[in-house]
């Protein structure tokens, strides 16, 4: 029996994460390009979730969130808690492709836009953002796929409460533990299919995998 509740929760988490992280990631990546002497430290801090074991990150979040609430919701063992955790672990996946895309835009284009009389905001949404869209799409695909597969941090901060914090990857683990290999197999196949579709669609846009991270500037 396929655990549709877990699948829907995973999709819900992935879409909510995307909705919040993309605008924030675009804003942060745009500022990181010209962050000056603090740039290596900021980049290092944002990349930490890539190298930290998920259980370590989950432990710190659990300790930090314990007993805290936001909008009246507790931060541990709740959807809000796993959403915040998902935002944190996805930061490097969202920011790095967008930042690389912004960095690849030649300085001369920004200067040409300035000389054309455009304001900083106009330069951002008329020039920089359209030129960095491949990076934004790449960030969206990576974040989406990574959220579907996230396990350790979610388990630490959310437990495995059905319909609330039990995402598909946790459900697979639970099913294997209870010898429901058929259910685990179907859920795994579904996650595999969704992830493959997301990446294939993005490759369709890019033309080839080698361009996943870098926008093409003519």
């Amino acid at each position, binding site marked *: 029996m396929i655990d549709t509740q877990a699948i829907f929760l995973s999709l819900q988490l992935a879409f909510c994460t995307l909705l919040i992280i993309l605008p924030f990631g675009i804003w942060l990546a745009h500022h990181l390009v010209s962050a000056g002497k603090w740039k290596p430290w900021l980049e290092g801090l944002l990349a930490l979730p890539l190298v930290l074991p998920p259980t370590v990150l989950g432990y710190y979040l659990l300790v930090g969130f314990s007993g805290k609430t936001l909008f009246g919701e507790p931060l541990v063992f709740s959807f809000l808690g796993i959403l915040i955790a998902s935002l944190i672990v996805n930061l490097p996946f969202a920011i790095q492709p967008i930042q690389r895309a912004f960095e690849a835009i030649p*300085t*001369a284009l920004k200067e040409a*836009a300035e*000389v*054309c009389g*455009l304001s900083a905001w*106009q330069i951002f949404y008329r020039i920089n953002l359209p030129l960095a869209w491949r990076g934004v799409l790449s960030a969206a695909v990576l974040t989406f796929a990574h959220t579907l597969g996230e396990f350790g941090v979610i388990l630490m901060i959310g437990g495995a409460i059905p319909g609330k914090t039990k995402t598909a990857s946790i459900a697979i683990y639970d099913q294997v533990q209870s010898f429901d290999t058929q259910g685990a197999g179907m859920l795994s196949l579904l996650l595999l299919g969704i992830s493959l579709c997301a990446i294939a669609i993005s490759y369709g846009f890019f033309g080839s995998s080698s361009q996943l991270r870098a926008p093409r500037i003519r």
Partner: protein
Amino acid sequence: MLKVRIHSQSHGNRHHPSIPLEINLSCAAGELHALVGPSGSGKTTALRTIAGLHQPELGLIECAGEIWFEGLSANQALINFSPAQRSCGFLFQQYALFPHLSALHNVAIALENSGLPKSTRIAQSQAWLERMALGQFADRLPAQLSGGQQQRVALARALARNPKVLLLDEPFSAIDNPTRQNLYRILAELRQDLAIPIVLVTHDLREANLLADNITVIDHGIGLQTAAPNELFQKPRNSRVAELVGIPNVFNGVFNAGRLDWPPNNWFFDVLDKGKIPPASPVAWVIPQDGLMVHAQAAPTFLPARVETLSSIGQIAVVRFSVGNSKESLVWEASSAEIKRLGIHLGSAVFLEFDANKIHIMPLRTINDPRRLLPAG
């Protein structure tokens, strides 16, 4: 009228490393002013400074009666307009067209903040493209246009805002000859139609000579001389200018109260100057072609020389003489008929007559004192 007086010690940023600048120029409406110098001399930085893309430390930039920059001390600008506030048309060396916008929208984006309704902005942009003979390419992306077409789109974009000054950064460096001829024609037409100052950066002196009303020679960020092309070639201010503009027959000597000694040849000339050169100064001097006469017969006032090389190209012959006993050589251009009349051939002895009135003497290098840019008092 564009007036620029800038002094800068700063070194730009990692994208645009720039050298210290000390430049003083003015360019009247309708005038084409060329900034000429070797690579890395600071020409482009000077142009970027006018556009507001690089900030000098001291100086004044004024255009059409409006002050765009005024700085009296380092990093304390009284007035510093942003590039958007300065009404500059800037043609970038690599055009810097927006790759995701069509030719039409590349031009129209310059009118984005003009306050005009969108339909008018599009119509005006289309008119600029038509003027550049690109009307039928309005919908094409920059990558679908040739280099010359891209450059004309960039020029249309630079002009669309009705700028108060047009700045051209090496516009001829990356285009083939027919495209270049076309751009010469467009520039000539623009100069007639638009009464704005045009500043052109080029490393090609021949081009500057062909197009410009005035030339400023820049070396290591310092404006060495500003003059009309003819004057620049005839009266370079110092030996470095003479070297940069490629004047032949530049020699060293010593000037002392109306007498120019040419020590290697034990020779001297009586030369008038304006009293600017202190007594017994080492100087450089040049003799233009029309101040030099070549004779087959000796005379007491003629300097003996020997033909070192002789090359004929069509009706023109270029002769290199080794002068007197020194190792210095002197280049002389003459018609093939003149060479025949004198009976000159390789190794033959000749006698050179110098018209001392045509000799131009100059200091070895202009003394550079940045303090002269500081406000009086």
